């Protein structure tokens, strides 16, 4: 069902990817407990780590990077719509028009 000719990762590479995911999770938890050291950078760093894990799982485990363009468009479409909704609500919240 793969429309591209890029080879999928091997089981060994899947394990390596999972180790990276585990390390990223450990870094997240460490950041949570060292908030006093990283201060205002803690939350942006946590978001970067979560996005990295998201991209790794979607790209390699769900094989999106090996998939047909149409699949990518649909998936990204959902992501963009959700982010637009999130942005609108958060802008409203920040301007104190909401609740």
């Amino acid at each position, binding site marked *: *069902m*793969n*429309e591209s000719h890029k080879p*999928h990762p*091997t*089981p060994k590479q*899947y*394990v390596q*990817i*999972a180790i990276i*995911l*585990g390390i990223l*999770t450990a870094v*997240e*938890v460490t*950041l*949570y*407990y060292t908030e006093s050291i990283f201060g205002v950078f803690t*939350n942006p760093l*946590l*978001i970067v*780590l*979560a996005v990295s*894990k*998201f991209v790794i*799982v*979607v790209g390699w*485990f*769900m*094989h999106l990077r*090996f*998939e*047909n363009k*149409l*699949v990518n468009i*649909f*998936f990204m*479409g*959902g*992501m963009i*719509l*959700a*982010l637009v*909704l*999130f942005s609108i*609500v*958060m802008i409203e*919240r920040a301007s104190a028009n*909401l*609740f």
Partner: protein
Amino acid sequence: MSDHRYPHEPTGIETRKLGMWIFLSTEILFFGTLITTYLIFKGRTFDGIKLKEVYDIPFTSVSSFVLLMSSLTMVLAHNAIEKSDQERANIWLLATASLGTVFLAGQIYEFTEFYHKGFTLTVNIYGSTFYVLTGFHGAHVFIGVILLVILWGVGRRQEGLSLDGGMNLEFIALYWHFVDIVWVVLFTVVYLI
């Protein structure tokens, strides 16, 4: 994700698979809405116990790790079925369902602890958004575990599993990985930030 191509499909991709991806796209909007609602109330002051006071981050971190590793076992099951290794695929499927069950047990334990500490669904609106968001995710994990067990049962039959069959391992794998990426976001947004 096998090397089959679909020249007879105008899109060049199997319609059922495209449908699965469209379904996942709608699920992004579903969880996107729940997360947005949760964040509206996050950080505001309400009467009652605050979530930060009842969190058990080490416990939730282990749960998150368990769910992440279930994505590994799922992708290994998929890899095995691509190589027509039925026996190994069945083992990895069972491992995935087991890890999913461990995650669910952890969530039930966590909710029970929160309840005993006074953080209930109705304590304040923040509590309501928390339980609705994490509860819906838990419901998705539960459905995923049921689907995995059914798939494992199919795999134990004489014909075994096939990537072309109606009960397709690939689609359930996509669903399972999706449930995992939702938790990746929830773990950061709900527990860590």
